[in-house]
């Protein structure tokens, strides 16, 4: 997995419900495909995405092989106030990628 990207509103106020989008590049190999010799290509997917705000979990997604390649998510957050969002993707091998974003919260 590589190239995580996210999208947040440019500015928001405490109490707003904002949309957050996150995507990452990964083939999400299902474990159902066969190679030219007929052997199964083993499953290798990102199985978990967790979003935290100031170290408190706000949203999580556990993916199965039925989620498309380059898994994309759009989810929401009720903004408690200023703070830091951390997005973490974990794959079947235990590899983890994180991205940190600061929410621009105006009074």
């Amino acid at each position, binding site marked *: 997995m590589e190239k995580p990207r996210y999208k947040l509103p440019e500015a928001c106020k405490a109490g707003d419900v904002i949309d957050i989008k996150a995507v990452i590049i990964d083939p999400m190999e299902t474990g*159902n495909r066969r190679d030219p010799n007929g052997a199964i290509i083993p499953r290798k997917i990102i199985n978990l995405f967790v979003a935290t*705000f100031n170290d408190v979990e706000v*949203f999580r*997604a556990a993916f199965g092989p*039925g989620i498309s390649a380059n898994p*994309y998510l759009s*989810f929401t957050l*009720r903004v408690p106030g200023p703070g830091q969002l951390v997005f973490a993707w974990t794959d079947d091998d235990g590899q983890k990628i994180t991205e940190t974003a600061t929410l621009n919260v105006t009074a």
Partner: protein
Amino acid sequence: MTAHGKDGEQTDQGLRLGTEAGVDADRPSRRDLLMRAAALGVSAAAFGTAFPVAGAALADEAVAARSDQFKAAYEALVGERKLTEGAVTMTLPDMAENGNMVPFTVYAPLESPPGIDDYVTKLTIFSTANPQPVIATFGFTRLSGRAEVSGRLRLAKTQDVIAIAETSKGELLAGHTIVKVTVGGCGG
């Protein structure tokens, strides 16, 4: 896109979704989506005890496609518990040209202001005919704002896609929609 069901009729459940779901007035496009999602359901298909009543030809095809692994996974999650049918809005295309990349939005409109203990905690999306029955499971918190998530999923063939949401009080909400798939995308 045309609505499915013999006459695209709106069921009681569909109308209820549009008017009682508490959709924000300042997001009319979402209301449109909700009404369209309601119309996508098979007419008069009560989700019933566990599976919809077969009626229109597409419903028959979807019910016939149900896999054993879906039934087992569904029973494991739902068991004998009661569901509120039609309470989860599913927005997926009527027809997916590419089964590898089917956009979805699922929304369980049971939110409460912070401090009130009745909100959606978990939502599971089932494929009824893929090799693996659980597409994804989402966890929401009081900070989520809305129990709503969009993404992209894979469908091996024409099937019913079912969402089961659970609230902090342990109640179950359900929604489902049939997607016709022309080119399957699970690799199996």
